[in-house]
């Protein structure tokens, strides 16, 4: 119902806009037509950079380089041999290049693909870096690309650039491309794969624990973004008909960055609005650089003033309205209609010993965080791991769940060795965990957090999400995952919060959500890191019941770290005690309570 309504509204809007574009040459002069074209192209560029940076969280400053590749590839394909012959003055063009030709549409797609290939080559080494270093490295690549273009005159005509490129970029062409890019982007971002992208941005560590190979996801997003950069560059070249290497300096990247910052990092709607605003303003601001005559007064133009105002606005936006116009919100037709509330399987496997830890030692520098730790967990057990602060409990968790490689020793999960496997592989094998300091994908809805957890159990590939109407598996699997997620949420008493932002939940609910998300990966074995931290006695009493229920309803085996003794003693079948990395005791809750070594480690000397 709602979906049909929105679809109809969208179709109407698109038809109206197409009609407007059709009549635009009559309504608008060349200047405004050019602005309209630039808006569409900048929107494509902004969307693609936003995918890399705003959505997936990779700070890239290399977009101008990928634009340059796209612009040159397309131009070289559409220029006629005669034009090429006339243009290469200093050095001869490569003979094979002289006769290469392609129709415009093919040329811009090839341009995007070549840019994407370069993007992939860049991504493989560089995306291992994080944060600012990634920004600088991508900036470096963009500069290298520019320098290569300048210096390979036989291929690119060097610093002279290319002139007389046919002006194929019509309004229909630019807006049509934007339409396709927009459709694919929106479809992808709405699918569960889109949720995965945002999860990588919000918390990479937690995403890995949800079974996501975050490096692969980042490479995909980066490469797709580069495709957009190449496409935008190609359209740009065919709009302004002249390109040269100086067009693709870092300033170009800054312009696009400005658009997504103004529009809102991570918002598709924001990129479109930002593009319209920034492009119009940049063109409109040209007046301050041209001399104006009002009556008899002549105001001379001030060169540079345009960018001064522009940069001041950028600084002001970032200081006073950091989240931009849209923040991370998106446009939806629903804002015109009052919202109504909307209102749900279990895994099983039987192996006797679920986890087998043997002689595991973990060292940082010279210090042992864990020393020669061994224990087993049997199917269906709830096992407690306790010990004073700094005893190595969380380190043990990190080793078991694959965040740290043990210095020595073996870990077997369901009979398979997992020591040294990465967290996403461990998760795939059927293990999941929560974190001591809750790690949710804070900007996402509660529902999306859980759905992200289910991504590893889905079969469709990421590229199908670009066109879900063709690959209907995407829609089917996503709706199944959504139903299961809603189911989980209602079992955990979170259904009312499904569409709230995860970070806005009360503390206890955030803890439960983290567990729900872990359950969505369909684990056989669950690690809980201090689930009762920050709960009041009544809440921890409820938690006690809840953990037992979890085990029974989801057929789980559970290992938990906990400081709240009431919870530990109340729920655990068996307890291991660590102190300063050493395994000092084990036994049933009653044995542990009576163990003098434990009392001493916990309470200090003289307590026993």
């Amino acid at each position: 119902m709602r979906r049909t309504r929105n679809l109809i509204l969208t179709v109407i809007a698109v038809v109206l806009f197409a009609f407007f574009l059709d009549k635009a040459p009559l309504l608008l002069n060349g200047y405004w037509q050019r602005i309209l074209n630039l808006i569409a192209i900048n929107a494509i560029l902004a969307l693609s950079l936003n995918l890399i940076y705003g959505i997936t969280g990779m700070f890239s400053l290399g977009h101008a380089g990928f634009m340059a590749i796209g612009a040159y590839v397309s131009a070289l394909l559409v220029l006629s041999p005669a034009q090429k012959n006339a243009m290469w003055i200093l050095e001869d063009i490569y003979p094979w290049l002289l006769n290469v030709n392609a129709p415009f549409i093919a040329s811009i797609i090839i341009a995007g693909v070549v840019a994407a290939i370069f993007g992939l080559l860049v991504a493989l080494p560089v995306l291992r870096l994080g944060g600012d270093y990634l920004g600088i490295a991508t900036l470096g690549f963009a500069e290298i690309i520019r320098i290569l273009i300048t210096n390979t005159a036989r291929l690119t005509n060097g610093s002279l650039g290319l002139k007389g490129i046919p002006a194929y970029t019509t309004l229909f062409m630019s807006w049509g491309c934007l339409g396709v890019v927009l459709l694919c982007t929106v479809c992808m971002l709405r699918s569960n794969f889109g949720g995965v992208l945002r999860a990588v941005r919000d918390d990479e560590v937690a995403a890995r624990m949800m079974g996501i190979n975050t490096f692969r996801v980042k490479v995909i997003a980066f490469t797709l973004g580069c495709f957009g950069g190449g496409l935008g560059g190609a359209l740009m070249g065919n709009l302004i008909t002249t390109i040269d290497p100086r067009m693709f300096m870092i300033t170009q990247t800054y312009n696009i960055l400005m658009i997504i910052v103004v529009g809102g990092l991570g918002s598709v709607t924001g990129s479109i609005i930002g593009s319209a605003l920034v492009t119009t303003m940049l063109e409109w601001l040209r007046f301050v650089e041209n001399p104006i005559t009002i009556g008899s007064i002549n105001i001379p133009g001030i060169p540079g003033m345009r960018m001064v105002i522009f940069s001041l606005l950028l600084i002001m936006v970032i200081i006073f309205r950091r989240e931009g116009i849209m923040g991370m919100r998106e446009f939806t037709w629903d804002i015109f209609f009052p919202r109504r509330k909307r209102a749900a399987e279990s895994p099983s496997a039987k192996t006797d010993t679920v986890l087998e830890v043997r002689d595991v030692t973990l060292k940082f520098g010279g210090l042992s965080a864990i020393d020669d730790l061994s224990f087993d967990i049997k199917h269906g057990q709830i096992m407690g791991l306790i010990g004073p602060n700094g005893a190595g409990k969380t380190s043990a968790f990190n080793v078991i769940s694959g965040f740290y490689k043990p210095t020595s020793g073996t870990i077997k999960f369901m009979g398979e060795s997992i020591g040294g496997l990465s967290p996403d592989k461990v998760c795939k094998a059927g293990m999941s965990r929560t974190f001591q300091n809750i790690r949710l994908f804070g900007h996402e809805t509660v529902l999306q957090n859980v759905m992200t957890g289910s991504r590893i159990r889905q079969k469709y590939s990421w590229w199908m999400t670009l066109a879900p109407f063709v690959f209907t598996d995407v829609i089917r699997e996503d709706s199944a995952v959504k139903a299961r997620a809603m189911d989980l949420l209602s079992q955990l008493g979170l259904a009312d919060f499904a569409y709230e932002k995860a970070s806005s939940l009360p503390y206890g609910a955030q803890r439960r959500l983290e567990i729900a998300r872990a359950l969505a990966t369909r684990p056989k074995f669950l690690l809980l890191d201090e689930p009762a931290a920050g709960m009041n006695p009544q809440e921890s009493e409820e938690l006690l019941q809840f953990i037992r229920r979890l085990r029974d309803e989801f057929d789980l085996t559970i290992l938990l770290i906990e400081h709240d003794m009431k919870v530990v003693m109340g729920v655990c079948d068996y307890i291991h005690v660590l102190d300063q990395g050493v395994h000092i005791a084990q036994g049933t809750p009653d044995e542990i309570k009576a163990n003098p070594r434990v009392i001493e480690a916990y309470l200090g000397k003289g307590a026993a």
Partner: protein
Amino acid sequence: MNLNIFIQHFINALSLGSLYGLVAVGYTMVYGILRLINFAHGDIFMLGAYFVYFATIVYHFPWAVGVITAIILTTICGLLVDRIAYKPLREAPRISALISAIGVSFFIENFAVVVFTGMPRPVVQPPILMKPIEFSGGVRLIPLGILVPVVSFALVGVLLWLLYRTKPGLAMRAISFDIEATRMMGVSVNKIIALAFGLGSALAAVAGIMWALRYPRVEPFMGMTPGIKAFIAAVFGGIGSVPGAMIGGLILGFVEIMSVAFFPTLSGYKDAFAFLLLIMILLFRPTGLLGEKLEDKI
């Protein structure tokens, strides 16, 4: 290549490298403390060059007075940038400050175009710095070529003394590891950050002045490429490390000058070497030559 020409190149590389190093020191100090790439630093360098141009060539100050005036004015600009564009964002996500830095860089460059026009202006070199000195073996060097590295090394020496032998220096080293713990010791963190910006800007001003003398002209975008290369030098040497920044600058200077000297056909790719060097070091030793590892906590 005979010895004479080699020595010329060597001195050239030393000058260029020490200039990169001097600018890199400013990047490394700010990054070490705030984890912020101060994109505007290259433009502060440009302002230094312009101020000395105006002081000495337009307003005919004596050189010494002109240089000091330029350093003071540049330092004030550096402090203003921190105060206006970065300080309000101390609590914000780091990316906001980074974008603000890009905005400031844009602003300074274009403001310079508005005020100084985009035309490059020639700088008159004081003849005393340009008169070649003959050494035995036919080696001829101009005093400027020797002055640049000497001044640079002396200034970095002074900076190291400040960092390692004075109280504000101690505080500055401390806040680059742990701002909050340093604040608990009674250190006014904002004053120390301002000091870092001030010192960095003063060094950039000196570098800008010497740059303007070497390539005798000034123009509004002159800080862009040296700025980025100096940042690369800082990363190369190990971000946060002052000696590292200087070493990174020197290596960059030598790679650029020597590769072109030995392989003249590569001169068109001169600017690409810095980036290649950067990508290599990031891949094989992400902490740079002298850098410390910054760990993420799970």
